[in-house]
């Protein structure tokens, strides 16, 4: 049993990093990792499990370029200014070879800007802000997760098939919510010129007045609703919406809602038929996901979340990038990560050379209730690479990095 598992892990890691050479006793490749562990524990604790598992697997398979991986992890307390100080500590005191991590967009942008200043590589794992690879994109920053734009584009593809013409939106009132609504409107209107947006609600993040918001949306008598809220706001919104019948006979398109972090708290109140992006961890029966889920469950005695996949894929991506670069020299890595191909539980992905965005995608499906729990059904995987603007537009949006 032990032996077969070892063989399995070696196999998967070898797939991720083709250039692995067996060697011992060499200096480890040090990854300086920063995330909001105390501020956003519901995402970051599964995420930490994810990268721990991946590091263990990669090292069991002989490491990268014959060197083991070592992650030095820091908590940024949810504040970009602390993240910048800790990034300095990781570079100067811990002598890490590259930086990685991030959940909040502003933390990701702050670290990316710091890395540019210090000319060090930064692999942003979770931050969704489009600016990270476009307006503020730079040579030293690569990003793993599909951005707000990409997720909006994936949802639009499904939304355009709906008969609904009269839409309303509800989104948290800050950059993420604003840009998600902006892209969704723009892309949907391009595909469906007959669509109108008749009302919008902008609750403050974490402080939604759900009853009033639901009533205000219902008043516009929409045919479809775009929801961008997540976390505690989403639970609150769904409960009021259910009781007041907001979702009945209406299509709802909802970003991130299918991720276990946000879907599970909805419990038996999960509204059915919402079109969501997320991760149906138990249902995806590809070997890559099955191996990941069983290894994860064996090690941590719980099932993986979206965060777990992000942490796991981040290490895979770094391993592949370093292997392709041939060494840990920053300039080599800044070039070498472009085009690096890596395997994730979702399938194969690569960092694009044009904007350093990875082609990792996400799952799109409909919510259904099963045994008193919300799950995704009729889902399919959308490859991120297919939901990005044409290259000419990307170049225009990425002035700083060329």
């Amino acid at each position, binding site marked *: 049993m032990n032996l077969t598992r070892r063989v399995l892990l070696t196999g998967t890691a070898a797939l991720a990093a083709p250039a692995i050479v067996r060697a011992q006793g060499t200096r480890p490749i040090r990854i300086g990792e920063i995330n909001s*562990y*105390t501020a956003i*524990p*519901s995402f970051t*604790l599964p995420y930490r499990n994810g990268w721990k598992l991946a590091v263990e697997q990669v090292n069991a398979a002989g490491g990268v370029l014959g060197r083991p991986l070592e992650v030095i992890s*820091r*908590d940024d*307390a949810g504040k*970009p*200014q*602390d993240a*910048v*100080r*800790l990034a*300095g*500590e990781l570079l*100067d*005191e811990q002598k890490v070879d590259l930086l990685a991590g991030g959940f909040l967009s*502003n933390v990701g*942008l*702050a670290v990316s*800007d*710091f890395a*540019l*200043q210090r000319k060090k590589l930064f692999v942003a794992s979770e931050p969704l802000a489009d*600016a990270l690879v476009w307006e*503020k994109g730079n040579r030293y920053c690569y990003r793993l997760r599909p951005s707000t734009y990409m997720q909006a584009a994936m949802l639009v593809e499904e939304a355009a098939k709906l008969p609904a013409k009269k839409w309303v939106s509800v989104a948290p*009132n*800050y*950059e*993420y919510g604003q840009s998600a609504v902006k892209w969704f409107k723009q892309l949907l209107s391009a595909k469906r010129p007959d669509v109108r947006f008749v*009302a*919008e*609600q*902008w*609750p*403050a993040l*974490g*402080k939604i*007045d*759900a*009853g*009033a*918001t639901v*009533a*205000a949306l219902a*008043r516009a008598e929409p045919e479809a609703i775009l929801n961008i809220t997540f*976390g*505690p706001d989403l639970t*609150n919104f769904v*409960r*009021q919406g*259910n*009781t*007041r*019948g907001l979702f009945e006979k209406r299509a709802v398109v909802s970003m991130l809602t299918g991720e276990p972090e946000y879907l599970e*708290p*909805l*419990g038996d*109140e999960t509204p059915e038929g919402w079109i969501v992006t997320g991760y149906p961890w138990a249902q995806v029966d590809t070997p890559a996901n099955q191996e990941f889920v069983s290894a994860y469950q064996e090690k941590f005695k719980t099932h993986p979340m979206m965060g777990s996949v992000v942490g796991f894929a981040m290490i895979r991506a770094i391993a592949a990038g370093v292997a392709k670069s041939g060494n840990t020299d920053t300039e080599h890595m800044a070039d070498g990560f472009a085009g690096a191909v890596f395997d994730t539980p979702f399938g194969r992905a690569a960092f694009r050379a044009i904007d350093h965005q990875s082609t990792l995608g996400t799952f799109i499906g409909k919510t259904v209730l099963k045994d008193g729990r919300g799950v995704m059904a009729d889902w399919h995987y959308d490859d991120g690479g297919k939901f990005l603007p044409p290259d000419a537009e990307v170049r225009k949006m990425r002035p700083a990095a060329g």
Partner: protein
Amino acid sequence: MDFLAVQFLTGLASASSLFLVAAGLTVIFGVTRVVNFAHGSLFMLGAYIGWSILTRLPREPGWFALGVLGAAGATALLGVMLEAIVLRRVYRAPELFQLLATFGVVLMVQDATLAVWGPNDLSLARPAWLRASVAIAGQRFPAYDLFLIGIGPLVLLALWLLLHRTRWGVLVRAATQDREMTAALGVDQRLLFSAVFALGAGLAGFGGALSLPDQSANLQMDLSAVVEAFVIVVIGGLGSLPGAYLASLLIGLLQAFGIVFVPRATLVLVFVAMAAVLLIRPNGLLGRPLAPGQITQEIRPVIRAAPTTLKWLGLACLVLAIVAPFFAGPFLLSVLTECTIAILFAASLHVMMGPGGMPSFGHAAWFGLGAYAAALAVERGGASTMVALLAAVLVPGIFAIVFGWFVVRLAGVYLAMLTLAFAQVVWAIAFQWDALTGGDNGILGLWPGGWLRSAPAFYWLTLAICVGGALVLRRAMMAPFGYALRATRDSTRRAQAIGLDPRSLRAAAFALAGAAAGLAGGVFAFAKGSVFPGYAGIGRSVDALVMVLLGGVDTMAGPIVGALAYTGLYDVLLLATSQWRFILGLAIILLVMAFPEGIAGATRRFWLRGREA
């Protein structure tokens, strides 16, 4: 019309929820004068404990009621422990000092809750009767909201009866009116305070458990609850229960209708309303000016120039700080840079809180304004670092002059809350006005250019600006201006009698403090290479308060010691352990107990004891 009726009812329901949290806070404040920052933590604990109890009980209404009461009882017990273990030791400390202790509790509870209940949002499954709705004006309205609409006034009535028709209530009201006199008449204050705390905490827990059918128990609810509760309590008038209910109605309805007409104003609506109320009624809707017996205006010690030994010690520290780049590594240097900026930030708040007698809960407004002024000067105006730093002084300074004229009419916690309202408006503008401020993503790429590019050079500049700024502030406080300012703090009437103009003096101090904090913010922007809305956020304001209180309000060295201690402790703990909040909270509580006058204050007392004996 139908829509408005339903929206009205929705507003009433949220008013009840708001009232339940605020009621406990106002009761506690009315009697003990403790600004209980941990009230939101009690609310959160009520929700989590409620979840643990209710998920184990049958899902019928009777059991639900029993479970909610159980959660309220358990939270009340925790409140008593908080009072007996922590607060009882610091009642004698200067005003607002208890706030520091309760802030330590907030930090500890956050980590403890995460450890006990885990990181995921916990939601209580609603049985059919909790999901039911009633048809009102042709629309479905949640039955549970109708229940909430009723529970608010019921709790208000029950509290009114308790306070006006029982002997215990009479004693509580007597203590609210005149604490010293009540004690002189032989009422055991310790018992009374503990009971009041149990009541207040129980109400918070009750509110927390009752929120479960609407929202999940989550780790962010403590801070949002406490800020909302403070707003309600202040709008209503401190210590006034009917006022709190009236304020809850005002805010609940304002939100319900506000989001219909100005959906984007959700962040600021509440704070604009609070500012408006305070400008018209400086003591809140139903609050009364404090009676003479309520103002415990002990004569604060006169701050004199430091003894020679301390001056030499300070000089030695400064020399050490100047030569630091020759032996300190880059990381230590970045921590030192932050500590130095914190010194000016804390010293500027101290000018207001100490000699000015104006506590501020929103000092980060000036810090944030300074940071954004510097950032925009560079980004939009292409200004050099030095010109940008000039903007970082001028812009907040001008805002502080204008805003100061409104603020200085108020006193105490009301003044503090008005500054908080202003800070929240600044924060919301930074957070939402994407085109100007970059919103939540901030403004990036502000690294200082030219000769300031090297870390030691920038550090020396920071040292020169921040220590220099702090010395200027100190000089101002030792000048006739500072003495006049303290005179107006200690006795406004006598100050007026000798021809001082209290309002101008306080407004000048306010502007000075604002400009100095802005400068600190400007330097911080270049130290970090970026600015974010969080620089003007509540967390940053609390940081400043903690630094000043930890160091001690009644010495000039206090804010400096506090800034070094808090910033150093925070930076080191964040690096050292994932349980940094628990340990930092514990450290703050222990420091509060050991040094009720702040670290510098206690040191001064020990120093003087040796000299005067």
